[in-house]
């Protein structure tokens, strides 16, 4: 009976890449259909398919790694490269929005009154809720590091507690931002100020929600004994992502909330 003479993972055939591609197709064309014919059916179908794909694909990866032992050191190294490259691409994504912000704010046009913030915009006080948000995310960076050390030291209860605290801090940030969005004296339609503010902070908020979800999955897995003290890459990937989200916030806070006010 032949078996592999190498440490790499030859993945079994899987339908999820195809369903993911179909989901992408349905969501994009569905978006266009929504804009022209006012029905969200196609897009919603794509969204459902996307959620199913993500759930099943990642579930399969957990099965392959945690239960079937396919994630050998070289395989794990590949996964690390993958996560780092993905986060790098996200950095470039945000770089675009920062470029847009600085383009408009460094040389404000006559239409804005030649000044930044533009005439008529009342900015948020950077030393009120935005400063609290900064503290919340920095604290969550500490708690996620605490969780990591707990996992590495085999401290199960502490790992669960610190990971839970991290997720709660993430929710607190999201709740505070949602309230800020509701109470803000300007909207996304208020010129280039509104556009740059809400697109940059909005995508950041989406990433906070994604990061919190990733951490929540890790919490469930930790509770179900998936992680060992020296093999817990899923958690490390979530922690890297979470730190990335924190760093983006720091840049947003300094640029848009503080310098831009």
């Amino acid at each position, binding site marked *: 009976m032949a078996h592999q003479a190498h440490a790499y993972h030859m993945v079994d055939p899987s339908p999820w890449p195809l369903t993911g591609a179909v989901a992408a197709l349905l969501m994009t064309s569905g978006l266009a259909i929504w804009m022209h014919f006012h029905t969200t059916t196609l897009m919603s179908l794509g969204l459902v398919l996307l959620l199913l794909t993500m759930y099943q694909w990642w579930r399969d990866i957990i099965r392959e790694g945690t239960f079937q032992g396919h994630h050998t050191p070289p395989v794990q190294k590949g996964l690390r490269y993958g996560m780092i490259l993905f986060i790098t691409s996200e950095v470039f994504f945000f770089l675009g929005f920062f470029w847009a912000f600085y383009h408009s704010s460094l040389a404000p*046009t*006559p239409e*804005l*009154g*030649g000044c930044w913030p*533009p*005439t008529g915009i009342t900015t948020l006080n950077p030393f009120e809720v935005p400063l609290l948000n900064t503290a919340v995310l920095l604290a969550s960076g500490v708690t996620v590091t605490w969780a990591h050390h707990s996992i590495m030291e085999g401290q199960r209860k502490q790992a669960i507690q610190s990971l839970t605290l991290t997720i709660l801090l993430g929710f607190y940030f999201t709740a505070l931002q949602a309230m800020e969005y509701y109470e803000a004296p300007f909207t996304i339609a208020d010129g280039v100020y509104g556009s740059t503010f809400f697109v940059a902070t909005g995508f950041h908020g989406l990433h906070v929600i994604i990061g919190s979800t990733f951490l929540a999955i890790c919490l469930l897995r930790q509770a179900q004994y998936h992680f060992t003290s020296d093999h817990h890459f899923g958690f490390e990937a979530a922690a890297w992502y979470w730190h990335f989200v924190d760093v983006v916030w720091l840049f947003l806070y300094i640029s848009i909330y503080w310098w831009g006010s």
Partner: protein
Amino acid sequence: MAEDIKAKLDQYRTAPFDARFPNQNQTRNCWSNYLDYHRCQKALTAKGVDITPCEWYRRVYKSLCPMSWVEKWDGQRDDGSFPGKI
């Protein structure tokens, strides 16, 4: 001093080179002089003084600015929606 200004205005042909705006895009030059004229006018009429010194800025912005911009800004000043600080 006033005589110098009158002499300068008599010799005026078009907006001279302004080293603050050395490049091809002269938007800021037009905007700056439009603002300066109206600020000068506002400040000097508040003091009750002759506004001849302000004439220079008016000549420059009239030379540089597209008429449509001037019309738009004048309209905005009239209905209180002009975004610049005067």
